[in-house]
């Protein structure tokens, strides 16, 4: 592993016009996905244009926050901070009731208890860095 400057790992996503509403919502405990008013489809990650029909008429839609574990792994080796201190931890793909899938962490249970198909609910984990903090959507057993 190359020696990365440790500070490189300690930055948070910088919200821009496109993603600011997403991060503002997670800070108030809501998970947003995008909906295209042109063709009626939901999409994710958030973009200003629909990836299907290119309509720029898109709106934010609050997700129910419930879903199921599609697949997951228990990470037992990772030298990058801050994850080295968190080992072992679960990285999972969660399928929301709305159909979109996202990569996230599963918390609130022993890593060994996570199963594919397990019902989960969104929670928000504060990630603090030098320049501030954000709330990251993570999932817990429902």
């Amino acid at each position: 592993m190359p020696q990365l400057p440790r500070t490189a790992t300690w930055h948070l996503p910088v919200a821009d016009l496109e993603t600011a509403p997403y991060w503002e919502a997670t800070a108030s405990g809501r998970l947003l996905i995008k909906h295209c008013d042109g063709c009626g489809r939901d999409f994710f990650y958030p973009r200003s244009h629909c990836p299907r029909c290119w309509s720029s008429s898109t709106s934010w839609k609050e997700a129910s926050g419930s879903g199921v574990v599609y697949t997951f792994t228990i990470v037992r080796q990772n030298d990058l901070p801050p994850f080295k201190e968190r080992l072992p931890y679960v990285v999972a793909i969660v399928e929301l009731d709305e159909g979109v899938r996202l990569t996230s962490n599963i918390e609130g249970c022993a890593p060994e208890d996570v199963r594919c198909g397990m019902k989960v609910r969104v929670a928000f984990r504060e990630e603090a860095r030098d320049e501030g903090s954000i709330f990251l959507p993570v999932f817990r057993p429902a």
Partner: protein
Amino acid sequence: MSKDVAVLGAGMHPWGKWGRNFVEYGVHAARAALADAGVDWQDVQFIAGGETVRNGYAGYVAGSSIAQALGWSGARVATAYAACASGASAIDIARARILAGLCDVALVVGADTTPKGFLAPSGGTRTQDPDWLRFFLLGATNPTYFAFYARRRMELYGSTEKDWAAVKIKNARHGLSNPNARYRKEVTEEEILASAMVSEPLRLLNICTTSDGGAAVLLTSLEYARKKGISDPVKVSAVSTVTPRFPKTVIDLPDIATDSAAAAAPPELTFRDSIAAAAYEEADLGPEDLDLAEVYDLSTALELDWYENIGLCKEGEAERLIRDGDTTLGGRIPVNPSGGLACFGEAVPAQAIAQVCEVTWQLQGRAQGRQVEDANVGLTINQGLFGHGSSVILTK
């Protein structure tokens, strides 16, 4: 008009952890390919390099770095980046120039020098780059993704650690006599199952390492080959560099999210399926025509996914193929006779070219100690980050 170009020469620098400059490996491989073809460097009209992102500026302009080291000759140059698919992109550019009649002789080369351990994100702070975010917000390392797919196989098809061990054992045997392979040693099921858990359910010996290495092919027009007295060269009959289609519902590196399959039916073929399908269509061939395949076994479990993606069997039947020995040398359709990434480790910009070198030697009957009998058609396949397909079909 034929869409084929000839592979007149193939050459490699052995894979390993040599710690030298990537240009040195590239030059070694290029000279080997030129010697193999009996073509002089001064006669090369176009050189295409696969970019390496871990070797500074010289790596960003790999094509010209290697051209300069071979000696400036006035050849035209390009460098391609498509992550693990970089080599296939470079081949595609060279092939297109030949088929367009813009040149007759093109050299394609890729080489890499790698750091120790699993590939970490390249340096810098890029807070809107999903590849950066997945590493630093979610702790989703590369093995995490291979583990996602492995877990799905367990869930859907009852894949087991023993099946994955069988892949590793097979590839280790295949690579035993390959002079370019880094690991040439048999491995037992006990050793594999006792190796350290990295990202459950994958253990260390299920995941390929990173390596230094270089690979090159010399491509020419069929007419040029004929003039050299070679009437039946190995030919590139298809190069597939397709992108995914909407809605993309499979998470591939480095995606951290997918479109919804709920509102729009996903495409008939997954992205990985579509890479092979486009290659078959271009070559007017099908999986039943293959005599061998070189697939990208970043993990042992992923090799099983590829069996299905390239149509060797139906979905969920790959475990049966490995258990029955179908994909072992001497079996129905040998996969990774070179030993695959299990024996090589990944040298990103060189790997897709190395796959083409192996299939070329197999079709020429020159793969000593690992030769597939009566090999006439071979396929290579791989997938580059950020939506890059990579598949080459070679025919005799």
